[in-house]
């Protein structure tokens, strides 16, 4: 049996843990709101960009001189996985779910005889993947978007990707991140970045302006050459924003649970503490009484 002092210490330590988790929960909640707003604000640009690119890409896709970011290298040998995780832990299953998906993708690609390379964003992803796949990691970035994720961050990553792509280091690039659905639900998403996958809706949208042909200023391919890298940056930006919101959401939920668990534990410990205190008092009383009786 634990002594009364042990129990008291235990209660005190759980209580301070609870204070920490509840503070973390509140911080995550306020960050979540900000991240959500940011993700929402960035959506119009991504949508418009997609629409514009959809109408452009459909015309050019099958031409022999189509840009490689759109048409691909014509091969499917080397895959680059862009694994976006967080820098901090204590976010529930947030990083674990991304990493699980990353590992699964990696294994299935390797089974098909493809070469896989990894590009990690965030400390957690780097640390976890470094353990088994250190040779596959070509680049790692940490502390992206502190204190605030800007478009320039995404542009920087896009530039690094394009550089490697131009150098022929990979054929297909896919990003793995958590899409934000709500504070309690995040969906692990895999999205192909290079070659650019024309969204399903684009063709339908095109039907509205059937037969109409866009005029281009300057030439089509020149616009596309500018638009494609930009679109890559936009997609990365969107993914990182979604990831940021998901991280805070996951952390908020995890910390909420932890706070509640700590509360329950304190209640339980309190009961045990009170009982053993009572038991000790009773025992002392019995001793005194039987001592008095013996006289």
């Amino acid at each position, binding site marked *: 049996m634990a002594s009364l002092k042990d129990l008291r210490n235990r209660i005190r330590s759980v209580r301070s843990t609870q204070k920490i988790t509840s503070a973390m929960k509140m911080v995550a909640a306020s960050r979540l709101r900000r991240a959500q707003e940011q993700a929402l*604000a960035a959506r119009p640009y991504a949508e*418009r960009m997609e*629409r*514009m690119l959809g*109408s452009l890409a459909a015309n050019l896709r099958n031409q022999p001189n189509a840009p490689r970011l759109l048409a691909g290298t014509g091969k499917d040998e080397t895959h680059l996985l862009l694994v976006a995780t967080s820098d901090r832990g204590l976010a529930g299953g947030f990083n674990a779910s991304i990493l699980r998906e990353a590992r699964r993708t990696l294994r299935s690609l390797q089974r098909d005889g493809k070469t896989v390379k990894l590009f990690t964003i965030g400390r957690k992803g780097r640390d976890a993947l470094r353990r088994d796949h250190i040779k596959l990691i070509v680049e790692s970035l940490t502390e992206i978007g502190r204190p605030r994720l*800007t478009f320039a961050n995404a542009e920087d990553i896009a530039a690094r990707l394009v550089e490697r792509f131009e150098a022929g280091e990979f054929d297909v690039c896919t990003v793995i991140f958590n899409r934000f659905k709500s504070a309690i639900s995040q969906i692990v998403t895999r999205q192909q970045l290079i070659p650019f996958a024309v969204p399903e809706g684009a063709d339908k949208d095109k039907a509205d*302006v059937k037969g109409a042909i866009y005029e281009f200023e300057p030439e089509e391919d020149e616009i596309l050459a500018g638009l494609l890298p930009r679109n890559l940056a936009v997609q990365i*930006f969107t993914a990182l924003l979604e990831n940021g919101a998901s991280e805070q959401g996951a952390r908020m939920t995890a910390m909420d649970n932890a706070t509640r668990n700590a509360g329950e534990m304190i209640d339980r410990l309190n009961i045990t503490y009170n009982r053993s205190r009572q038991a000790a008092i009773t025992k002392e009383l019995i001793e005194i009484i039987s001592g008095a009786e013996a006289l």
Partner: protein
Amino acid sequence: MADKVKFELVAPEKLLLSEDVAMVVVPGVEGNFGVLPGHALLISTVRPGIIDVYADDQRSVSQRIFVSGGFAEVTPERCTVLADEALPVGEIDRSVAESEAKEAESRLAGLKDQAARATGDDKSEALAQLRTAERHLAAAQAKLEALLAAAH
């Protein structure tokens, strides 16, 4: 004017403007173009400059917005500008714009030097950096010009 064109100005980080206007004048790479309702389908690259928004009629400018570059898509009903960076002309800070221009200029000089000396792979990278710096400088200068134009 009954007919209006839906004008949208979006920056990567947020939707800046979305309203029905009578006309907009956009600085395209191959010259400014005005967009009226019923404009032909067009996709154009935007150079650094000023977008003039004519909200009610085609005579008076209601808003002037500086953009540092981007893309524009025009259809008969709408005009969408995807700007790299956008700022209402009134909010341009002269000292900030000047220091940006100065910084871009000095970096450009440094890069030119570097590009001249570099070889092989380094060379293409240096040239790419050089082009980016040139773009920044052009944007900063356009910003200053916009400021001067607004002052008159």
